[in-house]
């Protein structure tokens, strides 16, 4: 499983074949395209997905059926490494999971359940009812799109490191790297899995592994870097073009973005393991634990 696409990078399925039965593998394949936005890694790979149930169309035993569904209903449950994971991040993952699973041709509806999260109620209700974030969380300061963009920018930066590393290794000079544009990339004529980069005004091409370059392009598109008035493909973390002299510093900074994600991934991994350890004390409210004060109580405290 190497796919790390997020829904924003994918066009919806154009598959018009009559719906074959939905399989857990197909659902999982879709979920694999959902990333933890902070780690830029698939939620399947991260082991967050706990349960997948498929209720075929016409399944009488499915009590939750809405009646208007003309296809399978899929239930997906997932848990994050800690109950304290950012609600905005959790929201994105739950929403993306729903979108991805519902894009399967045979699926009429996906129900998503986030478990053991401090805001599971708001998130599950909001995602399954298709509410905007602001409505699910009236006391939030706004939507989640700016958060997603910020994380996409970080992911772009980290992916740039891999892409530029591959190109430098393939023989591009620093000057050439700083000046590469989208139109210098040639996937079509290159062998399968490779990309050619035309330099010296199209006189010479170097060739490298296409994967890191494609991964970069997807995040570059998601963050709007390629729509900019500047044609340069690669940018500083602030999305400015740079010249050959700055390549070293930009490389150091993009390296740092990847190390950050990897470091956080390690923390999340450890928390995830700890949470699912066999002898772990129960996470949810213990008997007698006080409940959250009402809004009035909290307003009084201010």
């Amino acid at each position, binding site marked *: 499983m190497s796919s790390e696409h997020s829904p924003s990078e994918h066009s919806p399925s154009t598959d018009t074949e009559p719906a074959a039965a939905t399989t857990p593998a197909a659902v999982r394949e879709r979920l694999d395209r959902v990333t933890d936005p902070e780690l830029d890694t698939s939620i399947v790979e991260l082991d967050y997905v706990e349960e997948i149930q498929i209720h075929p169309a016409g399944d009488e035993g499915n009590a939750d059926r809405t009646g208007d569904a003309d296809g399978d209903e899929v239930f997906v449950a997932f848990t994050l*490494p800690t109950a304290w994971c950012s609600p905005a991040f959790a929201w994105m993952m739950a929403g993306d999971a729903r979108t991805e699973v519902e894009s399967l041709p045979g699926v009429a509806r996906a129900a998503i359940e986030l478990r053991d999260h401090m805001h599971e109620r708001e998130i599950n209700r909001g995602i399954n009812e298709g509410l905007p974030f602001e409505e699910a969380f009236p006391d*939030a*300061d706004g939507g989640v799109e700016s958060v997603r963009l910020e994380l996409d920018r970080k992911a772009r930066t980290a992916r740039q490191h891999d892409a530029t590393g591959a190109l430098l290794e393939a023989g591009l000079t620093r000057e050439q790297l700083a000046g590469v544009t989208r139109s210098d990339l040639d996937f079509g004529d290159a062998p399968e899995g490779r990309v050619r980069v035309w330099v010296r005004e199209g006189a010479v091409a170097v060739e490298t592994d296409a994967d890191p370059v494609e991964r970069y392009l997807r995040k570059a598109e998601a963050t709007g870097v390629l729509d900019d008035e500047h044609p340069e493909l690669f940018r500083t973390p602030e999305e400015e073009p740079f010249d050959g002299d700055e390549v070293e510093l930009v490389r150091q900074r993009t390296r740092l973005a990847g190390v950050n994600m990897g470091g956080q991934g390690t923390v999340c991994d450890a928390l995830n393991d700890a949470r699912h350890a066999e002898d772990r004390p129960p996470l949810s409210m213990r008997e*007698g634990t006080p409940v959250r004060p009402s809004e009035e109580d909290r*307003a009084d405290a201010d």
Partner: protein
Amino acid sequence: MYVTDDGEELFVIDSHVHLWDASEENITHEGGEQFIQCFYDYHTGFTPEEKQWDLDEYRQYGADRMAEDLFGNAAVDMGIFQPTYLNDFYADGFNTIDDNAELAERYPERFVLNGRFDPRDGEAGMRELERQKEEYDIQGVKLYTAEWNGDSKGWRLDSEESFRFLEKCSELGIENIHPHKGPTIRPLNRDAFDVADVDDAATSFPELNFVVEHVGLPRLDDFCWIAAQEPNVYGGLAVAAPLAVHRPRKFGEIMGELLFWLGEDRLLFGSDYALWNPDWLVETFMDAELTDEQRDEYGVELDIETKRKILGENAAELYDIDIEAKKEQFRTDGVADDFDLGDHYAGGTSATPADD
């Protein structure tokens, strides 16, 4: 003190310790329960299995155990208390300066007591800061910018209210500001642990030192970039250090970045006790090495001299601790007797003569 196999002594200042109370009686809000549960996951996630505590002892361990864990079982010479109040979650606070003082008063030479402020407390908060200075002569404050306070779910270090408090710190001679910048939790869509607010605060208060706790993880990239430009920004290694246990290579990468961007003079070791015990953590840190590849990539060393600075000397510099004078003092302060440490401070490498 940590003594290497070659007899080299390293003075250890654990720059991030707590004496907390997360007993069920003290919890007033489900956030308080989730908070300690989350800590406990960090604990079990990174602690070697045979060193793990059970949840009940973790909730409230008390002063005696803490003294023994730091000085008796570990090589810690001194600890810096970093309070975390969380008054909206815990009736008497989670970890307050007054709780911490219980132990600090018993071993006055062994602890540095830091205070805290919350700009949302207004004038009452200002008076409380003055009280902390007067009563405990604090030299530093721990700031928890994502703390809930009534309807507010966080605050920024570069806000106008915060600047008033930083001005007060400057006036009172409270020079070491420790913002907690750790994993994202509430509030909702905003990131109250974003490190961006450190930038403006550090520029505006060059006379203060900003020790960013947890080196901003998971915002190491933003943190390093700010620290590279602001000479008064430091990194506290609590939470980063335990990575060395299961993922030494990852730890090496993070240390490589930190040493590359900040250098060896601006990093402080911290166990985050009781999140983790310093005994195995100091040992693990001392054993940590960069790979050859990492040395080449970053052009830095994580050798014994670097470790000596990170483990103690850098904190000593910030808190005006004279290490040699402390060693001298510790020969007779009773801790060695209390914990059966023998002639721990008798000194092999120090210039002071033997005391018998």
